[in-house]
């Protein structure tokens, strides 16, 4: 069933002392390309949102001092997300904030590090830091809803493409 050249593991780490979740994932593409897929809104919409939802970008100005806002539409419900880009260094680093507008007082500080592994490969380390362990757990628990609904068929579909 697997038609991808290679399949990389997505690793999740949490920390007992600091309310953060860290995701580590390797890609078979150079940092410049992985970085571009994170900064060009036309590319971002193609992968960031869950497949069952439609992602609409209001604005996405990925540069130091810029900001973004996008909406996910699922079953007629709209969910807004916004944040600021605090530091953007091409092919290296994106530091941004992230707020789900349903919880406007909550904010996560996200750090995306693009590490050049050589041979046209990149390691992405994405760290989300929130301000309480309760919020960290809520973030982890949010994965449940989509995980249940979506299943693996969509993945197979994508992999076959």
């Amino acid at each position, binding site marked *: 069933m697997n038609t991808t050249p290679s399949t990389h593991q997505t690793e999740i780490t949490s920390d007992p002392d600091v309310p953060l979740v860290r*995701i580590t994932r390797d890609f078979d593409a150079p940092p410049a390309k992985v970085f571009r897929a994170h900064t060009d809104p036309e590319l971002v919409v193609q992968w960031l949102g869950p497949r069952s939802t439609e992602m609409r970008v209001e604005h996405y100005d990925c540069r130091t001092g810029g900001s973004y806002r996008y909406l996910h539409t699922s079953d007629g419900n709209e969910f807004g997300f916004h944040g600021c880009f605090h530091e953007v260094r091409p092919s290296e680093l994106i530091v941004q904030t992230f707020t789900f507008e349903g919880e406007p007082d909550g904010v996560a500080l996200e750090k995306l590090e693009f590490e*050049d592994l050589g041979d046209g490969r990149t390691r992405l380390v994405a760290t989300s830091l929130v301000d309480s362990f309760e919020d960290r757990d809520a973030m*982890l*628990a*949010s994965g*449940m809803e989509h995980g249940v609904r979506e299943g693996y068929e969509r993945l197979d579909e994508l992999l076959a493409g």
Partner: protein
Amino acid sequence: MPADQLSQVFSALADPIRRDIVARLAVGDATVNALAEPYDVTVQAVSKHLKVLEDAGLVSRTREAQRRPVHLEAEVFDLMTKWIERYRRQAEERYRRLDDLLRTLPDDTEPTPPPQTGAHR
């Protein structure tokens, strides 16, 4: 499971001895003395670790005087593992879409310079 319980579970499992205790209890119930045996720590210290695991809802102890076998509450453990696994799966799914996209992107961006440029100055 309430969010603060999940936090407790996470911090309870942050300790290597406690993780090891949980792994051993997955095989079967054991007494505090039996659990303490392989470690270079006192039974009292192991009891403290068990208290942390118990407060997190990960293990339970029957109140049978001296011999109180410790029992792993596998349900709690499974639920927590599921939360993380589903979160992971969601990230995995997202990044497989990114894999897909990266394969279709042309190489029109400037390649990053090779890491070792020191020899060329």
